[in-house]
């Protein structure tokens, strides 16, 4: 198996759609670590991240026919599969987890900043640190915890339009720090 071979994106996608084993190996060699870097800051636990990575590659294998290159690059498509699988995993775990079903302390707001976890030095989270507190919370809730803009508006007690503008401004800033 020659994993040093490189493909154009169009060729790679074509081979993946034919379920070509070498192409999948290439994909794993080149992108598993990048995707793992996306998954880990969301799920926070290595064991869980391993399960998610496995599911992500199986999903890529199963759903490659539905990848549409006119809507974006292959990596973006995989990134979103990885992010969604990570958020789903965190949610299904927190549903099973009785610890999390205990009531929060008295006088707690809908504000969830306090519950946010600590994995600050990885991937996009590292960049997140550079944002203002208020922006960081919104991106955290939207990108890392998968809440819709409507849910965030209700949780934070801010109008929907403001949530949307603040998140977009935050993302533009985030991008400037990405270099």
């Amino acid at each position, binding site marked *: 198996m020659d994993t040093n071979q490189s493909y154009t994106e169009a060729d790679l996608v074509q081979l993946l759609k034919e*379920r070509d084993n070498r192409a*999948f*190996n290439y994909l*794993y060699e080149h992108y*598993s*670590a*990048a*995707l*793992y*870097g*996306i998954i880990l800051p969301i799920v926070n636990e*290595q064991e869980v*991240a*391993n399960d998610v*990575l*496995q599911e992500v*590659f*199986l999903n890529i*294998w*199963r759903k490659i026919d539905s990848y549409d290159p006119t*809507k*974006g*690059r292959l*990596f*973006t498509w995989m*990134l*979103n599969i990885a992010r969604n699988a990570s958020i789903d995993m965190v*949610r299904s775990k*927190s*549903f099973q987890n009785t610890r*999390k079903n205990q*009531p*929060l*302390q*008295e006088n707690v*707001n*809908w504000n*969830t900043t306090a*519950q946010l976890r600590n994995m600050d030095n*990885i*991937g*996009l989270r*590292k960049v997140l640190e550079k944002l203002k507190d208020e922006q960081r919370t919104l991106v955290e809730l*939207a*990108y890392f915890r998968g809440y*819709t*803009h*409507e*849910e965030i*508006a*209700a949780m*934070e*007690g801010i109008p929907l339009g403001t949530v949307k503008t603040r*998140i*977009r*401004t935050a*993302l*533009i800033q985030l*991008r400037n720090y*990405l270099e």
Partner: protein
Amino acid sequence: MNVKEYIASGIVESYVLGLASKEEMAEFERMCAAHSEVRVARDAFEKQLEAHALNNSIKPPAHLQSQIFSEIDIELDKLRSTQNNGTVTDDYTPEPAPVVTLRWWKYSAVAAIIFLLASVGLNIYLAGQYNKVKRDYTVATTNFADTKQAMQTRLTDYENSLQVLKDTNMAVIKMKGVSNSPESMATVYWDTRTKDVYLFVNNLPEPASGKQYQLWAIVDGKPVDAGMLNWNDADGVAVMKNIPAAQGFAITMEKMGGSPTPDMDAMYVMKML
């Protein structure tokens, strides 16, 4: 908004990172198809994001690769076996039975015996059927009385529910499922005169044992307990607490008897007014 402003609005980043709403996504895809500048901007951000992800990659444990590829092999076998679903060939042909000749009286005797056995069998079968029908009839009469009683109780419940639905002073608030459970739905009926709150479950999963749904009124950004839902009442309109003012309603699953504050991760439906 011109194309330049559209590109600078943050929609590119929002779309690529998967944070855009369905409508925004559809609009963005239309804009991409219509304006090459939008496509170029999207492509540039995607490449930047990909480069960042590659630079910030974390190597997964080595054993994962073989584990994942053996799962893929299993999937591949499954795929192939459904594709070549061949037919099973059957080469078996029965041997011809030996032919024996019988005299005429032997035929008659055999026929008489067969007839007798069949007749006895039929009698036993019919007697059994008769007894079964008799038993079923008794059971059915008792069941009928019970059912009638139960139906009457249900009818009264439904009539009460209908009164709430008919009331012209009710504010009707449809709470849609949040992304945790998009199929969920429930409706709050809020009496504008008395401020009494009623809850109707359109669709919620049955709560796990020891768990109960709790209705929250959102008052000035804070959740206020609006009562527990007794699951037995969930097929009609359930009476909840009186809420004088609120900007929204939400339902979470809590431990039996309720919690002082909601568990945000177990929210099912919500509606802001």
